């Protein structure tokens, strides 16, 4: 009985949490897309600075990691393909797995680590030092002021970062292809492009936009709902990372399933 109660409690808590995220996302979307038509100016300056932080500054680490992932994918698939005498399909394997799955996912996870956690820590600190309250007493909506620029920066930058990640992954695969599988560089790239359908890239990009929304909503929600005191800031930051990773994987599963059944027809 107690177990059933606990399960029920967790389910309602989870649904309430999702509801809060959707509500926060909807409000940010309102301020982003509807607000400008109602006389509220879009916070261009803050959005650009967030986009720099979320996107441009993530490029070095993202490039390195996705290059390695591409190389790893090449090595792993070559292990099996070599036995079948089909090592030239390494290019296809790397290109498809990067664009459809690993590019968006690895990008999202790096962005969670860099920016999702930073959002939560920034907003939670502001909450603890009464800065959020100060915004409200100045008649400035905290979601409008803090969340909207982050939201906009994320949905713009995540697809860009994902395209970059796909490219770097394919280049990582090319390193293996050229050195171990007798490809010329140009031919490897051509083989990768031939293997890809536009659908592969687009589904990856659609996922990345949803990942961006999820990461922003979780990070900002954790920040805004933090308790009193400095240790709560740390706790909110940790929760933001863990919950974001979980939800990104969940969203990934849902969308991948969806795309699977759509493309079947």
């Amino acid at each position: 009985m107690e177990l059933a109660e606990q399960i029920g409690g967790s389910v309602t808590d989870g649904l309430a949490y999702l509801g809060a995220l959707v509500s926060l996302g909807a409000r940010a979307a309102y301020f982003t897309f509807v607000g400008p038509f109602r006389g509220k100016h879009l916070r261009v300056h803050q959005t650009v600075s967030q986009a720099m932080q979320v996107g441009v500054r993530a490029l070095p680490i993202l490039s390195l990691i996705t290059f390695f992932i591409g190389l790893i994918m090449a090595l792993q698939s070559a292990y099996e393909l070599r036995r079948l005498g089909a090592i030239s399909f390494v290019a296809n394997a790397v290109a498809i797995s990067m664009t459809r799955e690993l590019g968006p996912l690895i990008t999202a996870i790096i962005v969670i680590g860099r920016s999702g956690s930073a959002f939560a820590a920034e907003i939670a600190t502001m909450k603890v030092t009464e800065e959020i309250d100060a915004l409200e007493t100045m008649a400035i909506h905290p979601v409008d002021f803090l969340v909207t620029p982050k939201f906009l920066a994320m949905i713009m930058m995540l697809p860009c970062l994902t395209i970059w990640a796909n490219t770097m992954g394919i280049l990582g695969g090319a390193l293996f292809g050229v050195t171990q599988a007798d490809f010329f560089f140009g031919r490897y790239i051509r083989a990768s492009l031939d293997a890809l359908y536009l659908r592969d890239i687009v589904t990856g990009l659609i996922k990345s936009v949803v990942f961006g929304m999820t990461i922003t909503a979780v990070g900002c929600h954790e920040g805004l709902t933090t308790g009193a005191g400095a240790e709560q800031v740390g706790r909110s930051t940790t929760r933001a990372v863990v919950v974001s990773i979980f939800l990104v994987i969940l969203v990934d599963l849902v969308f991948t399933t969806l795309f699977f059944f759509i493309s079947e027809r």
Partner: protein
Amino acid sequence: MEPMEDTILQDEAMISLRGLRVNYGEREILHGLSFEVMRGETLVILGGSGSGKSTLLRTLVGLEQPASGEIWIKGQNLAAISEAQKNEIRKRIGMSFQGGALFGSMTVGENVSLPLREHTKLESSTIEIMVRLKLDQVGLAGFENYMPSQLSGGMKKRAAVARAMSMDPEILFFDEPSAGLDPIIAAGVDELILELKKAFHMTIVVVTHELASAFLIADRMVLIDKGYIVAIGSKEEMRTSTHPRVRQFFDRVPEPEVSQEADYLQMLTEDNRRTGNLLTEKRGV
């Protein structure tokens, strides 16, 4: 309430509370407070830790929702007006927070100019001049480009006052203006409040537990204890009051220790009033 009474109140009271009750979760913090703040007066809300005075201030500026009762600001009932109308009122009030609550990622000048940039269509050159003026009024001329982290505690408070004043508010709220400051800097902040009062005839509401500061700046005082109003009146009335709780607070007499075994037992078994108060203290209310 009779409508007749409303119009009378509107004429003289900037803020008026009627039977204000505020809860945190299940627990009631303020148990039906009623008083008024007149135009141009400085009202000091006094009370010990956990008395509910900060909750009262937070409710007045709209950060907490009352469970029941009414708050009228400038003749408008906060519960009866839309969010947009509330925002219009918020633009006419300024609030100085205990720790300053300056935005750490912005310079002092950007902090002060934020409400102007958000709510007015003034040219940036005009805003710059206004920021300089406000900073000059609080004695921080030339600090526009400093980050809040580069300021001392007293300077942060002054910068926060400058930000609270940037929209030329009619009502200024102060939460513990002298908390965490040394006596000399604290006296400087009191001096600043007196100057603002003299120069702009603003209505000022100050929450504090510093007696010296309260007697210096107040026109009237309210003493709050455990969520009830114990006494309200002018400085003289408070000084000469014979009410035991007022005397205890002003004469700084500690709470009597529980000596009798029976009392002690009663305290332990009493419904969680005492624990409730301890909890309030922990929350920093």
